[in-house]
């Protein structure tokens, strides 16, 4: 007998102890809703774990000092291990994200996927000095887990912040802007600031007014501001480097009071 009825005012209600005729229907609803909530919670948990692992990968990658070359072996091993862990997380929920349930838990999985996007696009950039495409990024996810355009864009927005951090830390420790070569063959050499500006231009050209308050439209405005600030910070830092030039002692760190702590400290 499911659910004992509450008797509000005494004996008269005793007759009603007979179960409600709707009980079987509600029991099947209960089972369905329980399954739904279990799936949902599993996905939220996985999303959180994926976010945490992605953040750690990003921290490791922030220790890289060179652009357009292989990730140093020690860091590469670290991120490979974390990547494998994330893959297991993704695979554990892939079945709950397919068929009719595709998009059902989008809100729950989205934060994890965005952070994951940020990590793999950062890694891709450090190795190739290129922006990863949506197709390339999709392929890094296990089958069954879709990468939506929204999550891709929002992840790339966050990538700008990582590039800013990478550019400024590298400038502070090596005295050069990543990507710039001492040679004068300007045409084919791009430095990270040029890349950041290209990204900024592309973002600004993206018309998201039609998205309204849903998905992309909701977050894009805030992220756009943060992204612009990041690019400007690098611009200012490069300006500082040029104007103060060689007189700046090696290892001097520009004042970034409102910035996150440098990644190394989080270990």
């Amino acid at each position: 007998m499911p659910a004992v009825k509450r008797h509000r005012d005494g004996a008269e209600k005793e007759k009603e102890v007979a179960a409600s005729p709707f009980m079987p229907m509600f029991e099947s609803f209960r089972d369905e809703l329980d399954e739904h909530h279990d799936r949902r919670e599993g996905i939220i948990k996985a999303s959180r774990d994926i976010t945490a692992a992605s953040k750690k990968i990003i921290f490791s990658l922030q220790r890289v000092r060179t652009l357009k070359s292989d990730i140093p072996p020690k860091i590469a091993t670290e991120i490979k291990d974390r990547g494998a862990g994330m893959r297991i997380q993704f695979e554990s929920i892939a079945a709950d994200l397919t068929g009719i349930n595709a998009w059902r838990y989008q809100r729950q999985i989205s934060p994890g996927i965005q952070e994951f996007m940020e990590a793999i696009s950062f890694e891709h950039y450090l190795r190739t000095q290129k922006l990863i495409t949506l197709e390339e990024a999709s392929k890094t996810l296990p089958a069954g887990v879709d990468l939506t355009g929204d999550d891709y864009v929002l992840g790339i927005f966050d990538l700008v912040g990582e590039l800013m951090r990478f550019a400024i830390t590298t400038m502070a420790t090596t005295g050069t802007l990543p990507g710039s070569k001492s040679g004068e063959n300007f045409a084919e050499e791009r430095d990270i600031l040029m890349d950041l500006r290209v990204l900024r231009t592309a973002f600004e050209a993206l018309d998201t007014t039609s998205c309204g308050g849903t998905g992309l439209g909701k977050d894009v405005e805030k992220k756009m501001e943060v992204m612009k600030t990041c690019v400007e910070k690098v611009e200012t830092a490069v300006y500082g480097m040029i104007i103060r030039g060689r007189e700046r002692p090696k290892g001097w760190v520009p004042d970034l009071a409102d910035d996150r702590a440098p990644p190394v400290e989080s270990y």
Partner: protein
Amino acid sequence: MASSSGMIDPRIFEHLQTKIDEDAEVRDQIRAITQTLERQGRNGQSILSRAHSTPAAHLKPVLEAAEVSIKDEIESVTKLAAVASSSPYYKYNNLWSRDIQNVVFSILFCGWLGGMGTASKPAEPGKLLTIEEVGGILNVPVNLKDRDAFHITIEEYLQSLITLIEELARLAINSVTLGDYQRPLQISQFVKDLHAGFQILNLKNDSLRRRSDSIKYNVKKIEDIVYDLSLRNLVPKAGSAA
């Protein structure tokens, strides 16, 4: 723009823009239908609202008018199902869920009042249409699990049930005003049975939970009416009931 750069494959952002634009187009198509549905829904509910001032014996014309209105709503739902089925169901379902809940409520209320009869299932006052019966009336699947298409979800059905309970609490009061002392008893039993059903659900902190919290107040409202009637010896004898 950005031509000098090998940083970004220009197709990336073109492709994203296309996606955004396609998305907006689907939304517009859906919105056009839900706007019609909303208007039809309001019309249907205003017709059904006449039940509050119409004695049970004279409900027939009200129910017939409501059924005509519901037919319009069904047509819109058919159109919506066609448009929506080309996209993943849960991508856009929040665009129409509210309107669907209203349609389902109209069907449930009309059915409870004794409308929505079909050849195989005759109408019967006081009857609760199941989610399957509602799906049958709307001509769409319910609670789909094995394929991705338009359907009525359990949550939508439950939301409509809560609206039905609220409406019946109002009807209980108005029945007394109309001199019908039998119907509040019938409503009381019906709503209590539904309430018992809701109590076995493990609801999380979502909109369904918040609204279902209101059921107990409606149960109480109806119990108070029954109390008032029995206090004054106005409750019809068991023999004369039904």
